[in-house]
């Protein structure tokens, strides 16, 4: 008998936002923070503690990786560490969005029947 594959666990909001922020390309910590703020229309404000704690766990899970350290052309000064999505991270993001679409479909169906 084939072993049933376990469904991936839902991602935490912080992890989902970071994956979304990195889905369009590499970013450094501050860049991720600003992208999350923009993606959520300012509703999600992530501090360095949450951001880097989540990045640490995501790196352990193989969802993101450090790519290189370089100067941001828009920000002058110091060299920054950039992060990027891995293929596992992209797959996790797609799976999560699929899960969300399923939830939304169920919710809309229920609301359409008034109940």
């Amino acid at each position, binding site marked *: 008998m084939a072993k049933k594959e376990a469904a991936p666990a839902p991602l935490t909001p912080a992890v989902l936002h970071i994956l979304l922020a990195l889905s369009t390309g590499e970013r450094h*910590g*501050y860049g991720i*923070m600003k992208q999350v703020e923009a993606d959520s229309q300012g509703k999600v404000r992530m*501090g360095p503690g949450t951001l*880097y704690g989540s*990045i*640490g766990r995501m790196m352990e899970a193989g969802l993101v990786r450090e790519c290189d350290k370089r100067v941001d052309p828009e920000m002058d000064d*110091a060299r920054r560490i950039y992060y990027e999505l891995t293929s596992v991270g992209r797959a996790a993001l797609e799976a999560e969005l699929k899960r969300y679409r399923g939830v939304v479909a169920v919710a809309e169906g229920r609301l359409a029947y008034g109940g």
Partner: protein
Amino acid sequence: MAAKVAGRRYRAWYAMLLRRYPRPFHERFGEGMEQTFHDLCRERRDAGQGLFGLALWVFFETLAGIVRENTNQMSQMQKTVLRVALVALGLLMVPIVASRLVPGWNWPVGAFVFTYVLFFGTGMAYALIARKMGAWSYKAAVGLALAGGFVMGWATMVHMSETENPVNLVYFGVLAVGAVGAGLARLEARRMAWAMYAMAAALAVAFVITQVLATDTPAGPVWSAGAMHGGFVALFAAAGLLFRRASLAGLK
């Protein structure tokens, strides 16, 4: 100019705060976090806003992260100790708050320390014994026995401080029966059941002894004392039955 000085000061404090992270985390992300904080400060400054609110938020948010990362680094045993210590502290808040609100409740500091040690000791005993066995009946039995022993020991101390009647020492003998029994049983479920039955029987004997010998104190109605003792006897007997159930389930 003042904002730049404040920014430098906040960044120095933030760098110090970041050293509270576990070393591997700090080595990996410390520089990036400092840089990010620096970027946030600059953004605020460029917008002509003060840094105090931002610094306060980031410091608290980072502090929460430090607690989380340090907790993740702890071994299971350290986590257990921390949990028990916090629960004991929560329980200690009851007498601390009560001493502020109830007139005449004037415990010295030593009494609070002693109470905390009792809460912590009982909690650790439960955590260490119960985690050896997976069965709910064993855990429930340990919980019942410890809670019953704790309340009985506490009530005896309070009663002795009020009456100064040495005959009440017999109740510590009951607790000793339980402790020695558990030691001889080596925490094995079937033998623990017998230790609990012995404790229940010892308590019944202690009740008879105190009723016969305690002539110097104004005793309340015998039925009231009997009901209270009966409750404890039933509790220890119930713990014994739960240990028995655990042993029948093939657990040690």
